[in-house]
């Protein structure tokens, strides 16, 4: 067993860490406050080749592996979750389905622009009545000549409504009990993006409801075989869990780093508060849990990269890190005392950003079901 990152991975980790600290950290609070999408940062991430890390170079991707992707997401989330989820949703949910299930023409049409960050990809799965119960999709696609006519609505969709959003993969009923995935380009008549939600956190990321009203999509936009939608999106979500787990890990680490720095600088009763056991216990617990979670996340990534079954490890990593992010953010606020409740300190934003990690891309309860099934319980 080797717990050392390879030189490539270590250099990538360091590069994204430096990028996040220099380019993201100084603007994160303002982007959050003004709920402004980080266009400039996304463009820079694109130029560095980070908007398509795990996809093949011949498709315009970075040729990296899942571990490289997880490391990058972790380092971004350590500083800002809005930027991290923008990259994460674009990669895991927006681009992955086209990479995995797209035919050559679809990949040629979309992959290079997605991987370069020129356009953003989105994944339209959740509906008002189909969240954890994603197979209960009500959106319908009716064959009409050489097109599919789509009617329905999606909600809580990331990256679909920005100025650079290019394509969304949606699940739709193409027959009785038959779910298929369809690619819908932004600008297609009948496809509209609603107003962004007023969220608790992830304020600088783009999240909206989508509507499809007699939206005609070319028949060639069917992704993979007709009726394969359920299998496809379960597979996409399984891989996606590694990315979201890296987000939880990064947020937990970021909250811990802020708490440690603050505890060493803040004085009370004539001493640094880091010298009090009450604070030390919090820091020691956080650091230990984070280290354990990191091994879980990296292991899930390594299993995937090794072509082995990663579903259990990924679900465990997702469950563990989401809860940990919530807990570490809370403890970090506690260490900051009253200042932790003030937006001038990043832990305040982290506290708001953390909660979605126990809900989005599969709730904790769904992860527990996945885990229990994998254990044949």
């Amino acid at each position, binding site marked *: 067993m080797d717990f050392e990152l390879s*030189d490539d991975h270590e250099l990538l980790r360091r590069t994204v860490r430096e990028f996040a600290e220099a380019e993201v950290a100084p603007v994160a609070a303002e982007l959050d406050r003004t709920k402004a999408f980080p266009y400039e940062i996304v463009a820079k991430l694109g130029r560095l080749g980070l908007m398509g890390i795990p996809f093949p170079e011949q498709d315009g991707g*970075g040729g990296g592996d899942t571990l490289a992707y997880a490391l990058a997401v972790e380092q971004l989330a350590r500083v800002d979750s809005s930027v991290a989820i923008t990259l994460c949703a674009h990669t895991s949910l927006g681009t992955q389905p086209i990479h995995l299930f797209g035919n050559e023409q679809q990949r040629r049409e979309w992959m290079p622009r997605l991987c370069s960050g020129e356009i953003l990809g989105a994944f339209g799965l959740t509906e008002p009545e189909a969240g954890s119960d994603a197979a209960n999709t009500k959106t319908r696609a009716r064959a009409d000549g050489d097109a599919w006519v789509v009617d329905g609505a999606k909600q809580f969709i990331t990256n679909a409504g920005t100025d650079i959003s290019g394509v969304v993969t949606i699940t739709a009923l193409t027959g009785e009990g038959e779910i298929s995935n369809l690619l819908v380009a932004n600008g297609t008549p009948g496809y509209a993006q609603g107003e962004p939600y007023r969220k608790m956190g992830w304020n600088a990321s783009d999240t909206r409801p989508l509507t499809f009203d007699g939206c005609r999509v070319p028949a060639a936009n069917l992704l993979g075989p007709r009726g394969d939608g359920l299998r496809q999106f379960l597979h996409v979500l399984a891989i996606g869990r590694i990315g979201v787990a890296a987000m939880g890990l990064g947020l937990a680490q970021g909250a811990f780093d802020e708490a440690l720095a603050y505890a060493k600088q803040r004085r009370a009763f004539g001493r640094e508060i880091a010298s009090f056991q009450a604070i030390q216990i919090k820091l020691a617990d956080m650091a230990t849990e984070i280290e354990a979670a990191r091994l879980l996340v990296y292991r899930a990534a390594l299993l995937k990269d090794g072509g082995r079954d990663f579903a259990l490890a990924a679900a465990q990593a997702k469950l563990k890190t989401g809860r940990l992010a919530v807990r570490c953010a809370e403890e970090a606020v506690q260490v900051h005392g009253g200042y932790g409740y003030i937006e001038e300190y990043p832990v305040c934003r982290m506290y708001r950003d953390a909660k979605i990690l126990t809900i989005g891309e599969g709730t904790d309860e769904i992860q527990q079901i996945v885990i229990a099934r994998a254990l044949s319980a």
Partner: protein
Amino acid sequence: MKICVLVKEVPDAAVEKRINPSTGRMDRGGERNLNPYDTHAIEAAMQVKEGGAVDVEEIIAVTMGPSTAVRALHKAVSLGADRSVHLSDDALAGSDVVATGYALAKVLERESPDLVLLGQQSDDGECYTIGAVVADYLRMPSLTQVIKMDVTPGSLRCERQAEYGYDTVEIELPAVISVGDAINEPRYPSLKAIMGAKKKPLDAVGIGDVGLEADRVGEAGSKVVCGDFKAPPQKAAGEIIEDEDTNETVEKIIAWLDERKLLA
């Protein structure tokens, strides 16, 4: 034109630096990184190459250090250097500035560069001197704290940051130039560059390969003797003047400054 960039692996900026009292050397445990000042030197080399005023055939990153220093070289080539040279030998451990300068100069002699660039200081030792020492061994002109560089075939016009303002100096090549962090904004390596870094040639050499005399390097070849180390004295607590009546406050501040002969 051939450019060599001297780089160094240093403890990461976030690591608290301390001297190991038993060895008298800096404790280099913990996370390490390429010296941030050296990234400016690599960027300066890249800008000369991309500027097109002269034809740069090769940029070579050169380091002296233990096996872990390979990671600093990987970063250097990911930032644009074409290949790297790693001088590593147990006999080099404990080299002082003069011995290090001598060793690096011997590596550089093999390469015969037209221009040697380096960061003006290392983030650990902060000596600011290695460029001048290397230049002396190579019998090349040297400039330090350079924050602007215009290369023409055969010569180099530099602006250097001085205490009193800026010097504009023109020097002939080959030369050794140490650069300040105001010279440029280093780029980040792209994912492609990172993944390609290991494919670029890395030449690992020991002291025998570059004709180094063993008694002129390492602890034995160093003239610096580390004596006792003491932490810098604690600063005395400052005096706080409450601003109740501003006129009175100003008078108090002036009296305080005057007492210390700080007013002309």
